[in-house]
């Protein structure tokens, strides 16, 4: 145990310094978010391409979904194969409220989130007690259940035709979501705000509770953490952001379709996380952009989209053994380490 007497390799903690450092981290995140939003929001001034704006809107919807999945997979170690159900629930919930009640958009938005929270709490209460593979299977089963319900409850959901006839987009506070640029700016705002909130969750004391549960749930319970409650909480929170992604998607296509609630959406979420990596907060966001670019370019070139995607996934999973952002961060850390040794 001679290492015990080894020299200090870190400074002692002090109250003002801790406080100042956490404050700085928070300001930094907010600043990055504001800059990102400003850049995205100004894009239409320089590029008139509708395809580009569409691309960013889809990135927003799937990015929120994939990042929220990473709160479960990467931060808490809960591998859900059914997270897509909340994406579908968001799209259908929002679409139905708008089509049937005619309330203002923000009311429908909040209403959808409330419905999602209730459904997620019920499903989560059943699932989060289960360990690894059982959790994965049962979440997948619930996904299939919701998908089948959407298909068979034709009078409400339109069955396999989906919610057709368009979702009304009444103007509120001068924002007209029928206007493409308005919808685009709105998507960017939701994306940036959603990411900022999820970042706050990840860096909060609760975020570290999640990391402890991921690393060693038994030990976590022996330092007084109610593991079941923490898992349920993050399950519901993640569902809310996935649902927001679904709402964006419904706004974008002005409809909701059974594919939004199919298990392949959950699968894409997992793909995205594998592509981008789960050890960094922005990994899933990078993965989203990668997957959508792949999707758009490959489907244009060949009909064998699945094969190409499969090969890319294999490259990341077997070749790099990690996602792109994991790889970049490790490479950077190694470079700094080497530079430090040389200097």
């Amino acid at each position, binding site marked *: *145990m001679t*290492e*015990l*007497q*080894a*020299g*200090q*390799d*870190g400074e*002692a*903690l*002090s*109250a003002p310094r*801790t*406080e100042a450092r*956490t*404050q700085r*981290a*928070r300001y930094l995140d907010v600043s990055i978010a504001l800059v990102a939003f400003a850049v995205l929001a100004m894009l239409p001034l320089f590029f008139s391409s509708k395809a580009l704006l569409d691309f960013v809107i889809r990135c927003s919807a799937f990015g929120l979904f994939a990042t929220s999945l990473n709160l479960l997979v990467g931060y808490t170690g809960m591998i859900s194969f059914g997270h897509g159900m909340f994406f579908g629930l968001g799209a259908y919930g929002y679409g139905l409220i708008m089509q049937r009640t005619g309330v203002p958009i923000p009311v429908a938005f909040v209403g959808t989130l409330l419905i999602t929270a209730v459904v997620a709490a019920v499903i989560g209460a059943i699932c989060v007690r289960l360990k690894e593979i059982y959790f994965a299977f049962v979440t997948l089963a619930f996904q299939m259940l919701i998908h089948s319900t959407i298909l068979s409850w034709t009078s409400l959901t339109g069955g396999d035709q989906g919610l057709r006839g368009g979702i009304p987009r009444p103007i509120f506070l001068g924002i007209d979501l029928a206007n493409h640029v308005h919808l685009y700016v709105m998507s960017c705002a939701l994306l940036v705000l959603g990411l900022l909130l999820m970042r*706050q*969750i990840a*860096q*909060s*004391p*609760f*975020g*570290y*509770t999640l*990391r*402890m549960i*991921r*690393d*060693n749930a*038994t*030990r*976590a*319970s*022996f*330092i*007084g*953490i*109610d*593991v079941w*409650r*923490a898992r349920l*909480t993050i399950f519901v929170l993640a569902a809310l952001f996935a649902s927001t992604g679904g709402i964006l998607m419904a706004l974008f296509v002005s409809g909701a379709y059974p594919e939004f609630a199919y298990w392949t959406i959950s699968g894409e979420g997992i793909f995205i996380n594998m592509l981008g990596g789960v050890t960094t907060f922005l990994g899933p966001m990078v993965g989203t952009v990668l997957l959508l670019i792949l999707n758009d370019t490959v489907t244009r070139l060949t009909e064998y989209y699945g094969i190409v995607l499969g090969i890319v996934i294999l490259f990341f999973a077997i070749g790099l053994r990690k996602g792109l952002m994991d790889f970049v961060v490790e490479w950077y850390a190694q470079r700094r380490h080497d530079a430090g040794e040389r200097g």
Partner: protein
Amino acid sequence: MLEIRGLSKSFGGVKATDNVSLDFADGSLTAVIGPNGAGKSTFFNLITGALRPDSGEILLNGVDMAGRSPPEIVRHGIGRAFQVASIFPSLTVQETMLAAVCADQRRASVLHRRFPLAETRDRAEHAMELLGLAGKRNRTAATLSHGDQKLLDIALALVLEPRVLLLDEPTAGMGTEERWRMIDKVRELWERQKITVVFIEHDMDIVFKIAPEIVVLCYGRILATGTPDAIRRNQAVIEAYLGTEDHAGAAI
């Protein structure tokens, strides 16, 4: 004061803990010894809530802990460290301590503030100093040596400021020299923190040297309790555990 009354637990037909009654006075240091399969770890698991007892009471200052969940029992002041260091591999030493204090202050679900919280700092710092881990604060737990991981495990229990600390073989998997250093550390902590410490240990030299009180378990039952001297002379212990009288003589 920790009082165990008639504690029993069976697995199938095997009585792993059989009607055990014991008192641990405040500020006492007790070693639990016994052959493999004597039910030492089961005894700890029952007290800390990892297992639910079939019958009996576990009274911590008069409040019954039997059948409560591990988080509840920890919050009442019974902390534990594990035979195989039970830590959070991807967190640094410092993060581990800060997060544990956070949990102890019932702030594990705080969402609106950033980790680490300023008010968790002093206790985390103190625990790292106590265990000699301050110099390795920024090391990830997974990269620590075996001995340091055991220390971190103990720090994790100690940082919660328990009234009773249960250490399941603090010296498991260590070489002779390292064992002694660890056990000196345990004794030092006990003297400084003035808490009740109960530890499981296999090395008789260590047990007889540092533990003022010894409990001998055998087949789930208490074979003997008492001071090192009394245990060494106890005929039942000699027959069942210490082996020949010669060995006992040698130990003296």
